[in-house]
């Protein structure tokens, strides 16, 4: 096939998919079981997405690299749009599935829109908790990993402790943390920090221990002292592993976040999901899940962006 024809087809695909979605939405009558919303929110969201895509495509004409990357993603976007259309058709046009667990796309998108301020508040709360715990866990994990990996005596005393306490699932610490800390917030921050601390410590220590011995000898013959060897040799050499530890840490911090938001307070996306579940409002559960998924993927994308920036010399241990 001609390259130009192929490109035109690529460009048309998502718009065609959107058109199909609209036809399915308006042409097939509702089953009548789903709660009806005040507006066709699903279609509004789809329209917004299509407009954003169109703007991005126009921008891609000028920013060639971006345009090329976007072009490769177009079939996927088209597929996603069609997939959602099929889901919505099954959920709201047929009576195949229980309405309680499978809300229409209209209801999910409608909820996202109508409760946006409330959801945003919860999101900000979750982000606050997450970042406090994350930063604490990162710092303690980095320095304890450094001490463990570099100093044999520290390793002798701390290694067994790390290996014994670290693998315990964070959620198992919840009862203890709640009774030890004066505030629930403090306990929650601690638990998230703990979830980050373990993988960061482990990976930092193992990263430093696996630095080639010759590198240390080279730096000694160049007149480097201990401080310089630690921060200008051991740390940069083990950055790939440290980032891997961070990656695992972030993932387990999300899991912990969801769990600790049950503790006493009534704020945060994790709490929201559980609350919606307990009152049997599954459109809220889906909305919360979407927000969490977007948040996780955004945070991890940022992590990998930072990694690629710092480690131009080393690419792709894990691709994101």
């Amino acid at each position, binding site marked *: 096939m001609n390259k130009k024809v192929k490109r035109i087809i690529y460009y048309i695909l998502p718009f065609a998919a959107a058109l199909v979605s609209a036809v399915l939405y308006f042409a097939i009558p509702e089953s009548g079981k789903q709660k009806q919303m005040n507006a066709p929110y699903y279609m509004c969201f789809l329209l917004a997405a299509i407009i954003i895509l169109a703007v991005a495509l126009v921008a891609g004409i000028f920013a060639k690299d971006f345009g090329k990357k976007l072009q490769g993603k177009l079939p996927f976007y088209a597929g996603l749009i069609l997939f959602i259309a099929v889901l919505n058709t099954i959920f709201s046009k047929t009576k195949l599935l229980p309405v309680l667990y499978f809300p229409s796309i209209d209801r999910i998108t409608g909820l996202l829109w109508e409760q946006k301020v409330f959801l945003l508040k919860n999101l900000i709360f979750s982000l606050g908790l997450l970042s406090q715990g994350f930063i604490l866990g990162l710092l303690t994990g980095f320095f304890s990993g450094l001490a463990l990996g570099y100093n044999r005596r520290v390793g002798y005393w701390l290694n067994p402790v790390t290996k014994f306490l670290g693998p315990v699932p964070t959620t198992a610490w919840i009862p203890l943390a709640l009774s030890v800390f004066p505030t629930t917030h403090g306990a929650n921050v601690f638990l998230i920090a703990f979830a980050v601390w373990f993988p960061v410590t482990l990976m930092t220590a193992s990263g430093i221990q696996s630095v080639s011995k010759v590198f240390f000898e080279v730096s000694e013959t160049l007149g480097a*002292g201990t401080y310089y060897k630690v921060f200008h040799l051991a740390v940069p050499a083990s950055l790939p592993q440290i980032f891997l530890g961070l990656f695992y840490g972030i993932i387990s911090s999300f899991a912990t976040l969801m769990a600790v938001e049950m503790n006493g307070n009534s704020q945060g996306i994790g709490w929201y999901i559980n609350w919606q579940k307990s009152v049997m409002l599954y459109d809220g559960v889906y909305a919360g899940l979407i927000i969490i998924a977007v948040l996780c993927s955004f945070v991890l994308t940022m992590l990998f962006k930072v990694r690629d920036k710092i480690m131009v010399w080393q690419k792709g241990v894990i691709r994101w």
Partner: protein
Amino acid sequence: MVEVGNIQINNVNKNFDEVHVLNNFSLNIEPGSFVSLIGPSGCGKSTLLRIIGGLEKQYEGSVFLDGERITKAGSDRGFAFQGSNLFPWLTVQGNVAFGLKARKIYKERKNDVADIIKLVGLQGFENSFPHQISGGMQQRASLARALVGHPKVLLLDEPLGALDAFTRMNLQDEILRIKNENNMTMLMVTHDVDEAIYMSDKVVVMSARPSRVEAVIDIKLPHPRVRVQDTFALYRNKILEILNFGGQLHEAEYNI
């Protein structure tokens, strides 16, 4: 000018567990000379070099640099390792500047970095990472890194072993040029008899384990040397005979 770079090795004994590697090893290396250590594999050439470099601290006997006893590694002795061992997270510039920065004298000696990079012929590659340049260039960068702090002595542990023949000859000339320009002492471990003859003022032939000095051969050829000289072969035969490889030549002749 007082000549610097005198290495004195007195009665050094070194054991690795039960293995006796160096046996009352003594050697005096004159300032400004190029000395090669050659000998059967496992005879402790590299160990001796590491002792002088201060990387090997458990041994009997003593080693002095200009009358001062060597106890640990230091920037007065440059060390070129087998393989370039450049730090992969630093550019050529960053690798070369590493020692100066570690010693907090980078600001005053900033120009030295550019000078040495030019000296080893790497200008234009300052901002390349090690994986972006060829093996020969990596070895040049590694040499530059060892030389930038103006060590009194450069210790070379088979630095060219991993390179192809042409790059190797090229770098041999380069190292000799650097030595003459800076009037420094160089001590090199090598397996290559030709390389030892081509580069050295003295070739120290070591015996098998536990090793001591088997012979010291003065290479009385004028610099710059010519690789195709007949006298070269005489030195080579002499060294190979000492190493007990002389006899095998006859067998080889029958095969031809």
